């Protein structure tokens, strides 16, 4: 170690990884990962979400977790976004492509994508 910059570089690179252990961030994204969810393809969705969140350095703001079956198996893979006091947003039949869009438009941009939500399917 010949300079403080080197130390700062390691620190920055690693902080992104250990931030996971600080518990839940303000925005929580829960992916339904019960048998129904997994069968419908929730795993690639979960992985895409984790990768996208890390790529955009959102780890201190967004926590990606799994959850069990919420009882609407026909709509799986389901992704729910919880943010502070706001009403939760439930996305259904999510694909890795949709997941990328959710990160970009909703988590970064702050605008939920109405047409992917359960409300859109019921109408």
């Amino acid at each position, binding site marked *: 170690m010949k*300079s403080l910059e080197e*130390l700062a570089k390691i620190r920055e690179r690693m902080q992104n990884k250990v931030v996971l252990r600080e518990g839940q961030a303000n925005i929580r994204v829960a992916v339904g990962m019960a*048998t129904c969810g997994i069968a419908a393809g929730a795993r690639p969705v979960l992985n895409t979400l984790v990768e996208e969140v890390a790529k955009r350095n959102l780890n201190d703001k967004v926590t990606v977790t799994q959850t069990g079956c919420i009882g609407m198996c026909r709509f799986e893979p389901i992704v729910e976004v919880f943010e502070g006091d706001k009403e939760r947003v439930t996305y259904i039949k999510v694909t890795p492509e949709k997941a990328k869009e959710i990160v970009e438009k909703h988590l970064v941009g702050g605008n939920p994508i109405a047409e992917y939500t359960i409300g859109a399917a019921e109408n």
Partner: protein
Amino acid sequence: MIRSHVLICGGTGCTSGGSQAIGEKLQREIDRLGLTDEIKIVRTGCFGLCANGPVMIVYPEGTFYSHVKVEDVTDIAEEHLLKGRVVERLVYKEAEGLKLEDVPALGETNFYKTQLRVALRNCGVIDPENIEEYIAMDGYQALGKVLTEMTPQEVIDVMKKSGLRGRGGAGFPTGTKWQFAAANTADQKYVVCNADEGDPGAFMDRSVLEGDPHAVLEAMAIAGYAIGASKGYIYVRAEYPIAVHRLEVAIGQAREYGLLGEDIFGTGFNFDIDVRLGAGAFVCGEETALLTSIEGNRGEPRNKPPFPANKGLFAKPTIINNVETLANIPQIILKGADWFASMGTEDSRGTKVFALGGAINNTGLVEIPLGTTLRHIIYDIGGGIPNGRKFKAVQTGGPSGGCIPASLLDTPIDYGNLTRIGAMMGSGGMIVTDDSTCMVDFARFFLDFTVDESCGKCTPCRIGTRRLLELLNKITEGNGTLEDLDKLEELCKYIKANSLCALGQTAPNPVLSTLKYFRDEYEAHVVEKRCPAGVCKNLMRYYIQPDVCRGCTACARKCPVGAISGKVKEPHVIDTTKCIKCGACIETCKFNAIVKK
């Protein structure tokens, strides 16, 4: 891409509970389920809740599992890690019967919520064998700051202003110690870390070394810069294999990253550290004996003065700091002296780690701001006394400390207060006793330890402690007199005043404090020939309650020495002169007619 970290405690407590095998099986399960690239297992140091081990925590959810067994691993992997369903039966619930949704987050449990973790901040959070995780937690930032922005005197001034006192027992102000060593000129000076933690029931330093070894290395380098030393030694006992291993790994990594060695951060500052293993002699925790041992001689203390800061290791100026003291230092440099001084009391700044043991529910490791009361530590954090028994006393400072009775439970803990009530801070062992403990026997246990551990160099300690033990044995065997109590006290004072080192000077503390607060128990042994707690075997009597005895003769037939006599269907009697107190009659009696008094 890693989405979840599973932190498994790799401290000594959980390791002996099988956490190594649990970690290995969990890795196999993760591989089997195809989660290898998604979930990372991190082996950490002690979480503190040793009584509930082996423990693990799953992030980002922060689910805390306790009492995990190898058989539970498949469930955790298949249910939680794969499907996201928390394994409810393993979740740590502070109160019985709590519903899952009501379980508080780990930081909100009674055990953790009033703790303040400074020395233990990384224990149970990072992988101690990965230097980069330490760096992520601001590791080596303080060393960088010191080397590039501060003069050695400025570092010493910060230490003085912070009010940090030595955590090894005596509580000497750290900044002052550094100042003494810095003021001396010499071609070589040394920084020594005292990791020879030997009190029965103490495991604070071990846990810091196991959980956060780099904090100690960083602090030693800072100390080296402050006093002008380029060489450090860590004296750690060989009985701490996990701590030794992690220290060696840490030193290797720090050298590899150029954080130890020559020209650190390109500033021209050189510092390196070596580990020296102690063979487990208690006296080597005394600083001059420790230095003698590092020099390759038999570990015996030497006279002070000269103090080590003037003439220490290999007759060069040396500072000796305890592990926990050192673990505080990087934070003090980064956050400032005022931040540290804002915690604790006027007399004792900062926090202190305590190892809770004995008759207490949450056996484990806690760190609290100084000035917290004993009652809070024992009842709120420690969860009280198990089996509905009554609190009797708490022994702080191990064999050098004293016991504190229930009437003093509301004393705020700091260096001054503990000394005033006849105990001492010591390194932080805290052994809780309940009403089934005989205080005379308790003092005898510690004396037995100091007699064994006395190095024999000076007469008051070598012979004095032996005589003390003999007097205590005489009392517990029922042969004591009231004069013996006065003799005990006189001998204690003599040993304290005349011993060469702290081992002898503090060895009588357990006797003096039990005499002071539990004199009635001593008197019961001497005058009434009775042990109130029913511990001292020679003073116990077996007795058949005539109104309960049915005269079934079962006990008389069972008694191996024929001490029980009586006619069929009439109450039996025990001849106490023949009775050997084996307890066979109590086990045999179906009517609970036989009691010990």
